[in-house]
């Protein structure tokens, strides 16, 4: 591999990091504005900044997860090997957004009370599915290092990381159940997920790698 391509791949990799960090940086910026006395409305977080923040974090978790799930089918479709190293950072960003999403909900919506959180999980299916998503992504994030692949062995590691599919499914339903009435947006995400998972079913022999 020549230095030019190495330089390019490095730039691409950092590009992903910057692109995924940007929505979080913007949110933090808006919270800093509020801390400085700007009204939530003027800071761009609506009159209900806690709910808006939770929603935005959740949406970015979903988007990052969907992008991570898009890498393999895209690679197979296009033969672009340089996409491969994006999968891990995108997956980790999904988990990071999921963690902050959960944390803001727990602290600012549930008052950091575990009994209230538990009551919410037990009573509301969409909360249960959100928690399930996070719990399924947790072991994947914890075993995202090369050392973990070695320790677990490739086959077992891969089996474990198939948890990403039910995690995606749970996240999609979490979103569908979250909105009131019939809204198209969560169904678009669900449709995209089904497409991404369906593309994996296409027999491998038709793809040249």
């Amino acid at each position, binding site marked *: 591999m020549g230095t030019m391509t190495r330089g390019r791949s490095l730039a691409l990799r950092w590009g992903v990091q910057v692109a995924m960090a940007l929505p979080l940086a913007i949110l933090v910026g808006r919270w800093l504005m509020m801390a400085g006395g700007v*009204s939530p*409305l003027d800071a761009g977080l*609506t*009159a*209900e900044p*806690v*709910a*808006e923040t939770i929603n935005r974090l959740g949406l970015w978790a979903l988007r990052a997860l969907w992008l991570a799930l898009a890498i393999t089918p895209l690679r197979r479709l296009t033969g672009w090997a340089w996409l491969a190293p994006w999968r891990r950072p995108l997956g980790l960003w999904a988990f990071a957004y999921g963690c902050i999403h959960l944390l803001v909900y727990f602290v*600012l*919506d549930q*008052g950091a009370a575990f009994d209230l959180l538990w*009551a*919410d999980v037990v*009573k*509301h*299916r*969409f909360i249960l599915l959100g928690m399930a998503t996070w719990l399924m992504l947790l072991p994947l994030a914890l075993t995202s290092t090369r050392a973990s692949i070695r320790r677990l062995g490739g086959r077992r590691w891969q089996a474990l990381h198939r948890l990403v599919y039910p995690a995606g499914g749970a996240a999609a339903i979490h979103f569908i*159940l*979250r*909105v*009131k*009435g*019939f*809204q*198209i*947006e969560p169904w678009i995400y669900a449709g995209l997920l089904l497409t991404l998972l369906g593309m994996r079913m296409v027999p491998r022999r038709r793809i040249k790698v």
Partner: protein
Amino acid sequence: ALARLVAKRTRDAGEPATSYENVKHYNNFYEFGFGKEDPSRNAGRLRTHPWTVKVDGLVAKPGVVDIDRLTRLFPLEERVYRHRCVEAWSMVIPWTGFPLAALLKMVEPLSNARYVAFETLHDPSQMPGQRTRSLQWPYVEGLRMDEAMHPLTFMALGLYGRVLPNQNGAPLRLVVPWKYGFKSIKSIVRIRLVDRQPPTSWNLTAPDEYGFFANVNPAVDHPRWTQSRERRIGDWLPRRTLPFNGYADDVAGLYRGMNLVRNF
């Protein structure tokens, strides 16, 4: 700026009102989009003049009332009411208007009138959200006769001493402060007195989630939202939700002997 309405304050909430800016920019009005700020962006194309309200059904004197006449028909009052959304957020809003009972008495309900059915304008060219199928259009709501005649039940023409901003349901909306916000139907074009419980929009969409009565009840949860607490717009931490949104002394008698878990 919107035209002023002169009114005497007849009811206080005993707590500070939510800012005018927040009341204007945080709305559920799916006729103008799903986002909370969509109505404030999109409701500009609603034409509230000329506007008429048809009052008919089981009444002795049915008729069509022009909105300008309606504004002068009854002495205007200002009432500061708590407003509790089924999504577990709340506001305190100074409304200007008149009791629904005044309007209903004027048209002389017949003895077999048991419910009141309300209808929002149906015009996708003014209400772009009606091009989607998020709900069945037009939006419809209803009250039992005794709820409609209750002195707290209010027809609002304005808020904060000015005519209603379009996104808040101009030119005429219902305000039932002890019920979840979706009962308080906006931009009303028709009020009909009927003998049977009329269909209501959210109940048609999800009958297991939204009941006909929809009284604020901290003891009965929605599948999505825990109703024992609420976030007051402008506050950082949630607060407890009160039965009937704090209006139990006024209205609990309406439901005596009723199972409020089944009749949610």
